[in-house]
């Protein structure tokens, strides 16, 4: 091979490898050498494709197409070579070129696409040399890679083939191409739509009808507003009744399912034929389509729904065909909550499907069950599911956890009445060996803590159970759950029963397995616990003092200012516990000091900082003069102690609540607020405040607490009192402050150890256990649902903006379609027999043309359509006008609206009126008569 790599030589041409050779070479190369073999082949192709010999070029292009398609190479560089081969008279060459082009061309990446226009037009023209073997790939290129311009230019060339006037016998393919052309170029609708409609007529051959119906199905389903297709309803109805082709029937059903939502009378009309098909058809695909149509669009017709549900049961009962079972479950899921009886009837199958080998079926069954949850059965079903999740494979276990978390947490826990139960369920979920949903569990634990005051004691209990289990610390998925547990037990420490145990759990040696952020939360929790126990201890003494002094000096002495009313809460909780002894607090402090001590040298700043906070607090306590004196009552004599207590309380006694996302907006700026121009003096303030962002829990107050209380007294009280004031003012966004009665704990624990049950019995177990659980029934007489704080979030962002662009384009199409249909089919009676009536339609059109002069505003639709035909170049202006007109009829003049309303409201009268007017103004209300004639 003497040839340079740039120019093809005769040798290349003579010894060119064919596609088969290339494939063989690739097959014989190992996976390692394959890349090299492909690179070599590509070099070869790059040379050969420039050959003046067209056959060499064609083979090279063929090889390149193969490599591009199955080995994912880029072949956009060869676009010109493909175009070069298109005009070749030898059939295989343009076929190779068309295949290459249809696989690799796209308007976005192929600049040369317009160069194909002329050749495509030539190949679409009726000529003896244009055999189907040549026209098919040409149409295919037009269908797959067309730009808007190309489609617009070639639409007129498609029309003869679509309408069957051309000698080329490719009507179905041309119809499919026309559909794609309409999709990229709505402006082609005036040209293409009419021939497409004609394809539906009785005289067309079955293949043409089938292709046309699928095209209309595509159009109607893609349109944001399918109302322009309503006038075709009679044609589709005829097909629904007459056609014996299942493919056609399926498409027709899909069209009706879409249209029935617009025109309620359609549903009444099609319900009989659909039920006939449901009963008689042996084809499962058609039966399934009927079921879907009934469930989605005919759900008001009870008999039809009953029939569909019976068919679904047949699907569910087909043991040998998982496809039918899967689709059956999906069909059940389509039924809304109003048809829970249908799911109820198949309850056993649904639940057994949880045990199916097919993940699809299990997933559907799970969705169905979640859809059936209501207040009365949520406890039972969720308990079962979570137990079941313990035993099944990891993926499905997580799917179950996900579903339970999502359903129970939906809409601020609207399903949950018994929060104690739900919290222990969350604990149980965390203990699932496969659990990977730690983040959501974490979120909900904290969230419930913030929102549901009554649930806090149980929350603290569950958190304790999680924290003291050393086994959980090793599981990286549970880190976040443990973090939430630690936070909860620190924040709601007053509900805790054994502080020492809790501190020991939080500081156990295995906590070094946790990430530093979680450790920081742990230490912060320890800080709160130490504070709490110290305060409680001091208060207890003070209370005792007050009491004894009150005893001693009979009612005239009331100097004690510390035990004020708002602190009574803490008193209560102390009373519940045993009395706190000096030794036990000392012991606690000692323990914390020894275990946290080493952490003050920790590398991680978060951990180190918090550890130092704790140690600082302990030092302050120790430094008070009387701490080491055994006689406890001496303690109160130290003013410093009262100061510390007051300070701590101010920092921690306030509840943290959920904050509405809109809260900041509602705070009015005070009139006397003057902001400094220069904020540099803030640095001085911030200098001694810890501003490290808090961990994953989502509010910012927490991070500031420790330093406030660590700092020396006076200046620190101010921020917390400001905070209190802020809360008073905007109390509405926080937890309500009313005190509820103490929870009774009469619910059994949910996380009892599971007995090992053999897998085969699982489903039976479940079925047995949920014997009646799907039926919504009266809840057992339990305690009332506790108050759950809900914020009136106004953040429902409308999602409509996202789909705007697409809708706009689709709207253009349906607008164009509407124009065509309303322009050409203005006379309703003609639609049943269009082929014979076509001439008269034309006359009608002209008539309405004249009427435009009289009824300008009403006729603008049809007018617009004609304008379109004249000039499609002034696109943008038309677009806007379409949008205005077709987007919503409500935009029209109110005068016209009221007029239309009157015609509709009394149908009898309206019809009469319409006929009267028919002589003078035949087309005033263009949309109404077309459909009415068919339906009445």
């Amino acid at each position, binding site marked *: 091979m003497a040839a340079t790599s740039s120019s093809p030589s005769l040798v290349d041409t003579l010894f060119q490898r064919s596609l088969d050779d290339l494939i063989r070479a690739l097959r014989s190369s190992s996976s390692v050498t394959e890349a090299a073999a492909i690179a070599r082949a590509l070099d070869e192709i790059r040379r050969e494709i420039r050959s003046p010999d067209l056959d060499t070029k064609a083979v090279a292009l063929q090889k390149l197409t193969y490599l591009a398609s199955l080995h994912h190479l880029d*072949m956009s560089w060869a676009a010109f070579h493909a175009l070069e081969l298109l005009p070749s008279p030898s059939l*295989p060459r343009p076929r190779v070129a068309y295949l290459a082009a249809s696989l690799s061309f796209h308007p976005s990446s192929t600049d040369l696409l317009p160069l194909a226009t002329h050749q495509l037009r030539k190949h679409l023209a009726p000529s003896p040399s244009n055999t189907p*073997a040549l026209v098919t790939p040409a149409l295919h290129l037009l269908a797959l890679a067309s730009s808007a311009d190309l489609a617009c230019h070639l639409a007129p060339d498609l029309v003869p083939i679509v309408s069957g006037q051309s000698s080329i016998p490719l009507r179905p393919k041309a119809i499919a191409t026309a559909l794609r052309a309409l999709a990229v170029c709505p402006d082609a609708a005036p040209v293409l739509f009419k021939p497409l409609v004609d394809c539906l007529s009785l005289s067309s051959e079955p293949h043409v009808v089938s292709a046309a119906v699928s095209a209309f199905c*595509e159009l109607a*389903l893609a349109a944001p507003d399918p109302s322009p297709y309503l006038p075709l309803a009679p044609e589709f109805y005829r097909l629904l009744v007459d056609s014996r082709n299942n493919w056609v029937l399926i498409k027709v059903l*899909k069209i009706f399912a879409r249209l029935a939502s617009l025109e309620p009378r359609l549903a009444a009309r099609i319900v009989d034929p659909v039920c006939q098909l449901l009963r008689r058809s042996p084809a499962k*695909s058609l039966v*399934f389509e009927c079921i879907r149509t009934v469930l989605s669009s005919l759900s008001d017709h009870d008999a039809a729904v009953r029939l569909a549900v019976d068919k679904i049961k047949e699907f569910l009962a087909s043991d040998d065909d998982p496809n039918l079972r899967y689709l059956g479950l999906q069909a059940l899921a389509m039924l809304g909550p109003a048809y829970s009886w249908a799911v109820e009837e198949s309850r056993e199958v649904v639940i057994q499907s949880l045990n199916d080998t097919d*993940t699809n079926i299990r997933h559907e069954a799970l969705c169905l069950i979640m859809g059936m949850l209501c207040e009365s059965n949520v406890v039972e079903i969720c308990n079962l599911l979570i137990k079941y999740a313990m035993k099944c494979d990891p993926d499905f276990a997580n799917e179950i956890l996900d579903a339970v978390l999502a359903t129970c947490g939906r809409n601020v826990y609207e399903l949950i009445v018994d929060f104690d139960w739900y919290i222990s369920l969350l604990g149980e979920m965390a203990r699932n060996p496969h659990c990977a949903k730690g983040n959501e569990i974490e979120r909900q634990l904290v969230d419930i803590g913030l929102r549901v005051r009554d649930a806090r004691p149980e929350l603290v209990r569950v958190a304790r159970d999680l924290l003291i289990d050393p086994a959980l610390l090793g599981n990286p998925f549970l880190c976040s759950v443990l973090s939430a547990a630690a936070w909860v037990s620190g924040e709601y420490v007053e509900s805790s029963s054994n502080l020492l145990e809790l501190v020991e759990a939080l500081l156990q040696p295995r906590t070094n397995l946790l990430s530093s952020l979680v450790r920081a939360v742990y230490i912060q929790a320890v800080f709160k616990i130490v504070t709490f126990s110290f305060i409680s201890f001091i208060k207890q003494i003070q209370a005792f003092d007050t009491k004894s002094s009150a005893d001693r000096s009979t009612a005239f002495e009331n100097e004690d200012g510390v035990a004020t009313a708002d602190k009574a809460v803490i008193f209560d909780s102390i009373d519940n516990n045993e009395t706190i002894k000096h030794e036990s607090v000392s012991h606690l402090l000692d323990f914390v000091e020894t275990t946290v001590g080493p952490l003050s040298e920790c590398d991680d700043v978060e951990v180190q900082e918090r550890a130092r906070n704790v140690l600082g607090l302990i030092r302050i306590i120790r430094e008070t003069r009387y701490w080491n004196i055994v006689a406890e009552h001496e303690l109160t004599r130290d003013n410093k102690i009262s100061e510390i207590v007051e300070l701590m309380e101010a920092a921690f006694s306030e509840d943290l609540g959920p904050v509405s996302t809109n809260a900041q907006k509602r705070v009015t700026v005070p009139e006397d607020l003057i902001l400094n121009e220069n904020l540099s003096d803030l640095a001085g303030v911030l200098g001694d405040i810890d501003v490290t962002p808090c961990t994953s829990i989502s509010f910012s107050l927490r991070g500031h607490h420790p330093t406030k209380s660590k700092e020396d007294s006076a200046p620190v009280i101010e921020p917390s009192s400001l905070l209190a004031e802020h809360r008073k003012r905007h109390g509405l966004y926080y937890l309500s402050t009313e005190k509820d009665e103490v929870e009774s704990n009469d619910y059994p624990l949910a996380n009892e150890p599971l007995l090992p049950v053999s897998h085969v019995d699982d489903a039976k177990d479940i079925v047995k256990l949920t014997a009646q659980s799907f039926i919504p029934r009266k809840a057992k007489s339990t305690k009332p649902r506790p108050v759950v704080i809900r914020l009136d979030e106004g953040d429902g962002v409308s999602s409509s903006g996202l789909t705007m662009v697409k809708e706009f384009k689709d709207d253009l199409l349906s607008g164009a379609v509407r124009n065509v249909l309303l322009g050409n089919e203005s006379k309703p009676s003609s639609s049943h027999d269009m082929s014979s009536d076509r001439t008269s339609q034309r006359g009608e059109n002209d008539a309405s043309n004249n009427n435009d002069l009289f009824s300008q505003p009403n006729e603008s639709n049809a007018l617009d359509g004609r304008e379109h035909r004249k000039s499609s170049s002034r696109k943008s202006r038309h677009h806007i006008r379409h949008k205005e007109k077709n987007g919503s009829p409500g935009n029209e003049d109110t005068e016209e609206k009221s007029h239309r309303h009157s015609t509709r409201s009394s149908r009898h009268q309206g019809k009469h009126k319409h006929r009267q007017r028919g002589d003078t103004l035949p087309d005033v209300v263009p949309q109404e008569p077309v459909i009415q004639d068919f339906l009445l």
Partner: protein
Amino acid sequence: MIRAVIVMNTQGKPRLLKFYEFQPPEKQQELTRSVFAVLSGRPDNVSNFVEADAIFGPGTRLVYKHLATLYFVFVFDSCENELAMLDLIQVLVETLDRCFKNVCELDIVFNFNKMHTILDEIIFGGQVLETSSERVLKAVEEISRLEKSASSVSFVPKSVSGRFGR
């Protein structure tokens, strides 16, 4: 409409790829890989449907058939009926079987162009046009006859290996 037709072997090597909505080559590779990852994880005797939202966008589904060493995969949206698509795979496979007389993976590997010709007769631009394998066969045979008669003059096998290799 049908979004894509994918035929791949059980090792994940694509044998026929047809996307009815343009996908650049890298994207094609990615899609093929994700489909294979989903399919290879599924045991036999389970349902043939897979929700394909994550791979092909919202509202799409995937139906596949596992035959011998090949997966036949159709990706489609809400305009198509699931069971009808399953039947259509059957139509495609039957047609291939009749066309190649007991089709095997090798036939598909070595008949790149013919595979596209057959597929284009059944599905055109994403629309199902023909469901009778007999008629598809007839059309395909007619095309190859025309191609042969056109190339009988010019398409003399030139390659040496082409001459001796078979």
